């Protein structure tokens, strides 16, 4: 009886430990995955930190523009973070910001030439906003705040998380603006003839209004109130 009860007493503990499979637990504990996930929401450049706003408005009149812009920025932020991390011991701290800017500008040139060669219409639609990744503050921010102090692998994961968070934000804003402004999503007509397109949504004024409402609603519904921002 005594041993029986003891066994019963032990069993719940085992049951608690058992459901967490070793692989997911190891993943959740690994630092690289944590850095990746942090960028998606907690460090989301747009909704949390309010960085990189010009492309967020300028390149989101259509979902596909927002998506392209996001992926291009993700490439630049990952590549420049890895490079900055690799040379972090070689760069004197007085000239680090100009050095980072040159590295970022070089990768932006690569993206710009790539888009112009393979998707010329998209490149034309995005206009000055691809070159403007050079002055996107969150790209420089990741280099300065994270990659200059961490190993390349961790820096890449951090940059990838932030880049994907940025892409998701831009794409969702693009979907909303395209749906209301053209009645379509990714060029596919969803709303029928009865829908009177809101032309304002694809104008600059509508871009400001949409992002303002988006950020306001997210902050209204997110627990813990406002984080970061000016």
């Amino acid at each position, binding site marked *: 009886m005594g041993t029986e009860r003891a066994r019963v007493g032990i069993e719940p503990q085992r049951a608690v430990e058992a459901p967490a499979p070793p692989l997911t637990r190891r993943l959740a504990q690994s630092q690289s995955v944590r850095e990746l996930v942090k960028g998606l929401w907690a460090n989301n450049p747009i909704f949390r930190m309010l*960085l990189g706003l010009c492309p967020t408005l300028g390149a989101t009149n259509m979902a596909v523009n927002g998506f392209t812009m996001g992926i291009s920025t993700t490439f630049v932020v990952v590549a420049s973070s890895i490079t900055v991390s690799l040379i972090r011991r070689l760069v004197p701290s007085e000239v680090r910001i100009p050095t980072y800017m040159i590295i970022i500008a070089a990768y932006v040139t690569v993206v710009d030439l790539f888009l112009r060669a393979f998707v010329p219409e998209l490149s034309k639609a995005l206009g000055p906003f691809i070159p403007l990744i050079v002055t996107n503050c969150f790209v420089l921010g990741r280099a300065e705040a994270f990659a200059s102090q961490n190993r390349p692998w961790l820096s890449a994961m951090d940059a990838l998380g932030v880049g994907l968070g940025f892409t998701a934000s831009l794409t969702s804003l693009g979907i909303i603006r395209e749906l209301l402004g053209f009645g379509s999503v990714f060029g596919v007509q969803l709303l029928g003839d009865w829908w009177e397109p809101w032309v*304002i949504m694809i*104008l600059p004024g509508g871009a400001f209004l949409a992002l303002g409402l988006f950020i306001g609603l997210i902050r209204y519904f997110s627990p813990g109130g406002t984080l970061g921002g*000016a």
Partner: protein
Amino acid sequence: MDIFLIIVGAILTNNILLTTFFGLCPFIGVSGEYEAAAGMGMAVIFVLTLTAPINWLIEHLLLEPLGVEYLRFITFIITIAFLVQIVEMFVARFSPALYQALGIYLPLITVNCAIFGTSLFMVFWELGFLESAAFGFGAGVGWALAILAMAAIRERLRFAPIPKGFEGPAITLIIAGLMALGFAGFSGMINIQAFGG
């Protein structure tokens, strides 16, 4: 090609902040206080009036003859960074009063996309040297006008009952949207792009 029309066009019809969103991060960040906004606006006018013609010279006397236009982004950003540094040292040496006013805003300007974006537009629209200088000045004045108007509105908003979650950036963006709609009323008056070529 009237220089005056380019300046007015850059301020009203093609306002870089309200039509192309350049310089939006400092616009949201610094427009909370009127004096800070005035300092930032002055610094932007100052640097833009210098960088646009200097980058024009670099584009047409250096990059084009050598056929290395693909180095444009790198050279422009280096020029801007150096110029901001030189301006900062120059102002600190010769006008301590101005340095007091602009001091902390000058370093921030390197990553203000309004500066870089204006130089890019100057190339895209194939403006001439004087036109570039006029466009740089007008773009700076337009940006300063927008941030001063926003700072004045936000001073008024300080005691307004704003819904939860919409304080700060969200309400600023919504007001900027209304301002952009107002400025859209100027569109069609003057088109700077028509001057190009």
